[in-house]
């Protein structure tokens, strides 16, 4: 079982809803994101979803969730930055983190270092799950 499943089972067992905030890496900067992860964890977040900004959502003519991220985070934050941010925050707080990324940045790392190495890298940051 993953930490995500464990968390939901525990929530169900205790009969309460979960607090699962979503934040965007690099909004407004990575230092703040790291602080937010730590503070949200300390404030009782059951799981934290961390979004990785995407420069170009599915076509510039479309309004989309990703476009919202894009508008707020034009500061060049990458997937690697997000992973580093998670690893640093995890030194201070233990809360399951879901990495919310467009697929291609994950694929780009896979192409570079290999799939197994990528999984190990995610594990090393203690990221519970990528989406």
């Amino acid at each position, binding site marked *: 079982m993953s930490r995500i499943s464990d968390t939901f089972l525990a929530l169900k067992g205790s009969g309460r809803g979960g607090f699962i905030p979503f934040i965007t890496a690099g909004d407004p900067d990575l230092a703040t994101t790291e602080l937010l992860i730590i503070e949200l964890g300390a404030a009782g977040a059951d799981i934290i979803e961390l979004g990785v900004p995407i*420069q170009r959502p599915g076509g510039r003519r479309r309004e989309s969730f990703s476009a919202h991220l894009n508008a707020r985070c034009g500061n060049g934050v990458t997937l690697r930055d997000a992973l580093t941010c998670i690893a640093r925050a995890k030194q201070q707080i233990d809360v399951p983190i879901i990495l919310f990324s467009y697929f291609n940045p994950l694929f780009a790392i896979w192409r570079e270092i290999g799939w197994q190495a990528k999984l190990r890298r995610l594990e090393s940051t203690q990221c519970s799950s990528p989406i």
Partner: protein
Amino acid sequence: MPGASSGGGRVGVLQGTMSYVLQDESGQIATTHSISAGLDYASIGPEHAYLHDSGRAEYTYASDAEALEGFALCAELEGIIPALEASHAIMPALRIARELPQDDVVIVNLSGRGDKDVQLVAELPTE
């Protein structure tokens, strides 16, 4: 004949399709521009990627200006208004034709009609 996407990019995944994708080193999809909406995309169809890799097709590109030149030339000489997407093929085809013997036949596949583009072209500033 795809536009600028056929001139670069590396293997990636965009909107669920693996093909050549214009992207930066971290995998962020590049922003693109083309005067034709159908080519304003950061990737190419995977069949084109396969044909490119297998060596069964060669690809080239055309700028917005060349596409417009091809658009006008085809309308004037042939009485056919090609779509701006297909217009990208005309000037490269002429370049290729100049290198071929007089009796050779060159086929340009006009994959779309340009009625939809006439207003856009008419509204472009004239030089």
